[in-house]
């Protein structure tokens, strides 16, 4: 890169010849080259083909009165006078002075650019000195050769920088999500505010029955009631509760109340999403999951919050059995929790039969209750239009998240301490 300094009366200015300018020094100005081609009037299309930089050449040749256009031909009007630009470029390249008027013409034609004087002056002052920073002027003028670059204490730990990061808990949840997707699960969605219908009734939890109290649930002050799904689904669910419908069950044997089912509540478990998914149609075989906030009026302590994430899912397949369910859970424990051993215990959920609890042995955490699962009751699946066995499972991900993040109190998952977030390592 050539740099040329032109000293005017007002001080030091740098004029740098552009790539285009340097080419014209070698090749001549476009308008000069055009005149060389134009021995006699020629068709515009022909000239365009022959002349490099045709548009620029024509514009400047016309401006200078060297050519004229008649119909579709171009003709030379007079022999070209010597153009000052080429000479000026040559002089600049040799570091010689050029009149200011010519310089501004060169700048206008973008053959030369004018650069700031102050930066250069500053750079010039650094000659012979020891510098910390390397300003661009030192680099591009080559003046860096004339300064000494001070050595740094390169072994010092750098300053503190806080990068933008995902929340560690969200990162963990993403990780779980990725693993489930790898295992072939599709993510489900569902509303935070649910009707009792989807939270309880569709799951075959009888109204005014202890199975309804399986978990503590919130009720709403407002809004109070919502609407029920299609009459088909409602009538089948009602029949399942009252007399078992066509499922071969006795049902609960009471009068099912649609008004109770229409009452609204915050979602108490992710299973509500599964019920909606079953009713809206599922692939067979199919695997679905959801990681959703759930709400229960629990006593708040180190292991209980009123709001927590649940990771739940379903597997629909003709050939599903209890033993295959155990196999699936074992795979979860190994893939997601990194467990090296598992144990199964009988458990109870109002909507599954049989039900199972899985404890997983983590190499560092020891035995933890990791998953609960079961085969959905036929009184649940058949009224929602699913004939095949459906396995429902839920994972204790909060517990695992606490372990991964090294925290003892579940409330810290929603920590409001920016320093804690800033210091959290990015997990793999």
């Amino acid at each position, binding site marked *: 890169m050539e740099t040329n300094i032109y000293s005017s009366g007002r001080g030091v200015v740098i004029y740098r010849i552009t790539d285009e300018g340097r080419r014209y020094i070698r090749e001549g100005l476009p308008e000069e080259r055009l005149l060389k081609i134009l021995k006699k009037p020629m068709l515009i299309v022909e000239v365009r083909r022959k002349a490099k930089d045709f548009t620029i050449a024509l514009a400047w040749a016309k401006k200078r009165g060297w050519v004229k256009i008649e119909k579709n031909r171009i003709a030379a009007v007079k022999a070209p006078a010597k153009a000052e630009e080429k000479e000026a470029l040559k002089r600049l390249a040799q570091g010689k002075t050029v009149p200011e008027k010519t310089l501004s013409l060169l700048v206008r034609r973008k053959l030369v650019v004018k650069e700031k004087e102050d930066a250069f002056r500053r750079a010039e002052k650094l000659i012979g000195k020891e510098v910390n920073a390397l300003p661009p002027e030192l680099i591009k003028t080559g003046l860096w050769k004339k300064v000494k670059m001070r050595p740094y204490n390169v072994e010092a730990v750098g300053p503190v920088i806080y990068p*933008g990061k995902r929340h560690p808990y969200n990162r963990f949840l993403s990780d779980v999500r990725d693993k489930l997707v790898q295992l*072939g699960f599709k993510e489900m969605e569902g509303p935070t505010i649910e009707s009792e219908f989807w939270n309880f009734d569709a799951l075959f939890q009888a109204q005014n029955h202890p199975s309804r109290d399986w978990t503590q649930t919130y009720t709403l002050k407002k809004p109070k009631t*919502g609407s029920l799904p299609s009459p088909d689904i409602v009538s089948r669910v009602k029949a399942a509760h009252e007399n078992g419908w066509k499922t071969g069950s006795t049902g609960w044997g009471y009068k099912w109340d649609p008004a109770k089912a229409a009452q609204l509540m915050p979602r108490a478990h992710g299973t509500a999403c599964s019920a909606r998914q079953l009713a809206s149609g599922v692939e067979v075989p199919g695997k679905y999951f959801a990681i959703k906030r759930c709400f229960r009026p629990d006593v708040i302590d180190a292991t209980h919050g009123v709001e927590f994430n649940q990771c739940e899912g379903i597997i629909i397949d003709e050939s599903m059995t209890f033993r295959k369910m155990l196999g699936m859970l074992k795979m979860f424990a190994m893939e997601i929790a990194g467990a090296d051993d598992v144990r199964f215990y009988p458990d109870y959920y109002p909507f599954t039969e*049989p039900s199972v609890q899985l404890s997983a042995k983590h190499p560092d955490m020891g035995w933890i209750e990791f998953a609960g699962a079961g085969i959905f009751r036929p009184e649940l699946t058949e009224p929602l239009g699913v004939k095949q066995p459906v396995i429902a499972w839920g994972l204790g991900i909060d517990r695992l998240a606490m372990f991964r993040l090294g925290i003892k109190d579940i409330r810290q998952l929603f920590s409001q301490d920016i320093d804690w977030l800033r210091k959290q390592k990015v997990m793999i």
Partner: protein
Amino acid sequence: MPTIEVNYEDLQELVGKHIPLDVLQEEGIMYAKGEVDEIEGETLKLDMKDTNRPDLWSAEGIARELQGRYAGITGLPEYNVQPSGLVVKVDRKLKNIRPLTVCAVVKNLNINHNALSQMIQLQEKISMTFGRNRKEVAIGVYDFHKIKGPIRFTSVKPNGIRFVPLEFTKPMTPEEILKKHPKGREYAHLLEGFHEYPIFIDSAGEVLSLPPIINSNHTGKVTTATRDVFIECSGFDFRLLMPALNTIVAALADRGGEVQSVKVEYGSRTVVTPDMKPGKTSLDIDYANMISGLNLDARKMSMLLKQARYDAKVRGKKIDLLYPAYRQDIMHQRDIVEDLIISYGFGRAEPVIPKIQTAGGVSRLQKLTDTAAEVMTGMQFQEIMSYMLTNKGALFEKMGMPKGSVVEIENTVSANWSVFRDRLLPGLLEFLSKNKHREYPQRIFESGDVVIPDSKAETGAVDRRHLSAAASGSGVGYEYMAGVLNAFMKNIGTDFSLKASNYPSFIEGRCAEITVSEKVIGIIGEIHPKVLNMWGIENPVVAFELDIEKAFTSAS
């Protein structure tokens, strides 16, 4: 999932066989769907999983299951019932108050300390868990010899009678009991709104109890000296009352009591209780194997079910079954399959990894959220996570906003968590207010669901996924945040414009609506100092909040 305590020695005596503690812990208790939580000397603290099997909530019930596996006592436990001659007349007046009762008499009891504590515990756990905290099932046990039949189950005016409630010395009216007795205060809500209260009273005018509140101190006190007892369960549904009564009767019978029936008269209709006649059902062998995957033959299957205390007879491809009267949980063959698997042993069922090929995927909303978060972290914003539950103070007052409509919780645990957030920004300000002494600048964002009331929606509200970002520190200004927003929108490929606007949370003249195709999708501005004062934040804050799905709508 009640937690109960049983005495290890007592349990083994009831089983009639020594069961080593480790065997009980690792295997035995699973036959009763339980887990040993803690061991304190002779006392085992057990977590009983099945909310629908009150028969498993006492040493007697657990012992029945263990007998099948360890003592060779299999098949249906039999209970003989002789008539006691006692009559209970139920008044029609109770129709809307507490219309039903089922009763029993058990005689010749030898109630030792263990038997008494198990009886009290069982009664408590049944009324608490199975009886929905006495609402559906309330249980009274009385000294039979202090009662003169027939008994009337009727109702009285709140101050229409006086009796001495349990653990008290002075007679009180029902009204006084509800106000002054600890149990009265605890359960008063169950009688709220009634002009008359239910009462059991004998033919001598002696009050037995005021259900579902309290027994009388005279008749309703059972001690180790009591030989014969009268038991009643009151409520609204025979399907809950019968198994509750049968469970208690079976437990006392297992300790040597003689069960006698009571005639409960509803006008001209008489119900004789307890009805200990076993239930009848059958199991399809192929179905059992299809669900369990255990591939058992009929002989093995009936043996396992007998150990689970069924009577089983193979008939072709089915097994005909009888099950004890205290069980009300068997509605479908599926319930029997679970008993079969438990009997087989959860630890013995070999897991099979299923090979089911399906294509997985995250939801579109999650993809958008992750993309938004990626752009924000790229601009050096730290993600935070807040609770969706908050309070009106944070959403409105502290934001300088007039009160708006939000989804509200009725049975709140804490006033702090009484409504659902309808925006994320207040949570970001709360976060900043807790980090005043941390290093600035602070750049944070959150992406999460907010809940917007919507009377047209199926559930009265809709979720919207929002993104909100805030920056705070000296020298942080509107222009910076406008730049962040611009970069965000450019990077997700959405054209947008800003329209000057006024929101009370922001400084006038430093607030704009974010619009995409003429539709408002969010807001940006510098937080008003009056809002900063309310949160106690001492540095300027600029922020924006937008609807993620709407921001991505025009993304190419």
